[in-house]
């Protein structure tokens, strides 16, 4: 019996193999036929309702060439910006196939840059495609161009061969200064869905110096619902990040204890905790920040490695952070955009009270008070104990 089954099954296997071959199905695409898109830009088309989609396609041959044979600058750009127009993003994407001949392969799309005019008008209708299409990554980074996305895509960076890769790298390393923040599609959608929280996205621009265009990222665009309403400066952004606990590192500049120069600290670590308090209609947010920093640079000759100096500097540091936070807070009140997500925090902690607050959140938000409790410890002075100064005896 079992033997019979064995024979039967082996025949079965053969039959199914035949079946596979008969079906000869294929949903695959050869790698040669791919137009690998690594970045996309969305702009408003000049003269109509249409949008202008820029897709940055990698030219593999060029990529290899320069890495293989070293120099050979030539005109060889390693990327090709293809444009397409359409009433919706998807239409524009398919429009592009008229130029490429192949369908765009967007699985490796790392960034989406939205033009400013589009952001002012509202992004909701444009980001749907970027979340829905199965090839798209929800981790795609979203940025807002200071002017037009197209210009950013065209800038040719020096080290990286591809502008989009360059931008990705820039955004991913926001931690060096914490002057902007990485926002991906999913985060953006999450903020947008929340209703009360204001989405933010980093701003990208180009700086023209001499004949070279450089891409830079600084500050954040603030949205109210899906419309861009303003922008945070670099310090304001860091103020925001302090509250959210997303500061990774950065330079904190204060004036030295004797007011003669500046001392720069490197932020080593920062944690935050926000406790909302709702008391008879009045909302107070208690922000607690704990952090560590190290003395990284000083411009004065005084000896800072003393207990007194440390105390003074810690106070100054705290003050500097508070200023950053308050700047961000004031800006958000001014824009009436809940960039911190205070509303969410209240909802999570005080669901019952939230129900009454929810509908008039716009009116309530400017009345919120912020209470900060900041404690940043200076941990080390790096390699030097005393400053590099000639006159030690002066002291």
């Amino acid at each position, binding site marked *: 019996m079992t033997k019979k089954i064995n024979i039967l099954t082996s025949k079965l296997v053969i039959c199914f193999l035949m079946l596979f071959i008969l079906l000869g199905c294929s949903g695959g*695409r050869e790698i040669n036929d791919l137009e690998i898109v690594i970045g996309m830009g969305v702009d408003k088309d000049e003269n109509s309702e249409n949008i202008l989609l820029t897709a940055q396609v990698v030219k593999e041959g060029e990529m290899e060439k320069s890495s293989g044979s070293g120099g050979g600058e030539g005109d060889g750009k390693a990327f090709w910006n293809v444009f397409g127009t359409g009433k919706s993003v998807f239409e524009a994407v398919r429009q592009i196939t008229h130029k490429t001949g192949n369908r765009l392969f967007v699985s490796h799309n790392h960034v989406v840059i939205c033009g400013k005019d589009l952001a002012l008008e509202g992004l909701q209708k444009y980001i749907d495609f970027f979340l829905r299409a199965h090839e798209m990554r929800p981790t795609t980074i979203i940025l807002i161009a200071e002017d037009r996305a197209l210009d950013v895509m065209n800038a040719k960076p020096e080290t990286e061969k591809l502008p989009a890769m360059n931008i990705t790298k820039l955004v991913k390393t926001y931690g060096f200064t914490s002057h902007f923040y990485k926002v991906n599609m999913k985060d953006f*959608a999450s903020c947008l869905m929340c209703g009360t929280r204001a989405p933010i996205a980093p701003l990208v621009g180009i700086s023209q110096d001499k004949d070279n265009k450089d891409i830079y990222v600084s500050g954040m665009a603030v949205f109210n619902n899906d419309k861009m309403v303003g922008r945070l400066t670099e310090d304001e952004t860091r103020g925001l990040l302090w509250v959210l606990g997303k500061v990774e590192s950065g330079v904190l500049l204060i004036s030295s204890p004797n007011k003669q120069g500046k001392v720069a600290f490197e932020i080593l670590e920062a944690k935050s905790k926000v406790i909302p308090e709702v008391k008879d209609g009045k909302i107070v947010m208690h922000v607690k920040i704990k952090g560590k920093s190290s003395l990284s640079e000083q411009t004065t000759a005084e000896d800072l490695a003393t207990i007194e100096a440390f105390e003074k500097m810690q106070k100054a540091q705290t003050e500097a952070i508070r200023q950053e936070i308050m700047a961000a807070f004031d800006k958000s009140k001014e824009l009436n955009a809940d960039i911190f997500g205070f509303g969410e925090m209240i909802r*999570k902690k005080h*669901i019952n009270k939230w129900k009454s607050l929810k509908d008039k959140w716009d009116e309530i938000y400017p009345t919120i008070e912020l209470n900060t409790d900041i404690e940043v410890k200076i941990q080390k002075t790096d390699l030097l104990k005393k400053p590099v100064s000639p006159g030690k005896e002066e002291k």
Partner: protein
Amino acid sequence: MSIEKGKICNLQLLFLITGFVQSSVLLIDFTVVITEHQTWMVILAGLAIAIPFILSYVALAKRFHGMNLIQINDAVFGRFLGKVISVYYIFFLMMTLSFNILDVGELYATFLMPDTPFIILLIFFTATCAYAVYKGLEVLARVSHLFVVVGVIVIVSTFLLLIDQMDFSNFLPLFELPFIRIFHGIHIMLSIPFGETIAFLMIMGYINKTEHMVKNTLIGLFIGTASLLIAAVRNTAVLGNTEAIWTSPSFQSTRLIDIGTVLTRMDFLIGIAQTILIFFKCSILFYALVVAVSQLFGLKSYLPLVLPLAGIEVIIAATVFQSPVDHAAITQDAGIIYSVPLMFVIPPLSLLIAKIRALPKAERGKGV
């Protein structure tokens, strides 16, 4: 005369049940839309409510040792009514199996390989299931622990890989949704992974020793549920309030994995792991279905029925729902309501009748 000649041991039962429950990781998505961030509660509540019912299945299997569901129905409800109920069960098994096959199809058609024709995926998958059923229950039971290990590794590793993207405040506020939604969610939970264990009544009769059955069933359920729980927690913590908008939150959360620049887009690997798990579940269901049908016809061997039933299942899976939207809507509604008597009424009732009529003794000679 029992159709299956192989015997399975208790430990294998544990793994079979674990794997069975675990493989519903993708299916908690039906619940997520309704219960959002409270899904984890729903899973636990579902388990708590399901345990007495599942124990009643076990009690039934112990009482009628060596018999399967169809035989039990015949014994308890008599020839005619028993047959009617058995047909009901067979319909249920057929539908459940086709839904699970469809789930794989949808998984691939929506996320992984949208360019490959849908029906071909279904055929591939069902053919492999048929091969597993050909090999018999014993082989399936013997490899069950490998499936469980794969499942646990995948679920735990995705959890760990996503841990830095998790925001546990997403679980707050603890109680927000109206009760009816929670109730609905619990019902879905009860039906989809837990109630479907009714299929084990086709298998439990072949366990060589009945002593530790209760213990092993419970442990199996707990491990399986723990996996579901980890997945639910992962989804909520990672996706937050967007959880309800995705076609498949479980899948979407794994798409967010981004470690370095290399460990990205892990979704395909996760998809594969899910496929393996669903394959396991489908094979069990398919086995139960084939044995049930051949028992109903009173056959000596179930092997001739495997391929025709596979053919039927493929077509049902391909045509039963027009789209995932249909699938979700009907599953959340009629899909879980029609099976209520099968899962929560008939087994306890049979147990009761069997107790009153002191059945297994009278019927054993016929059953074995």
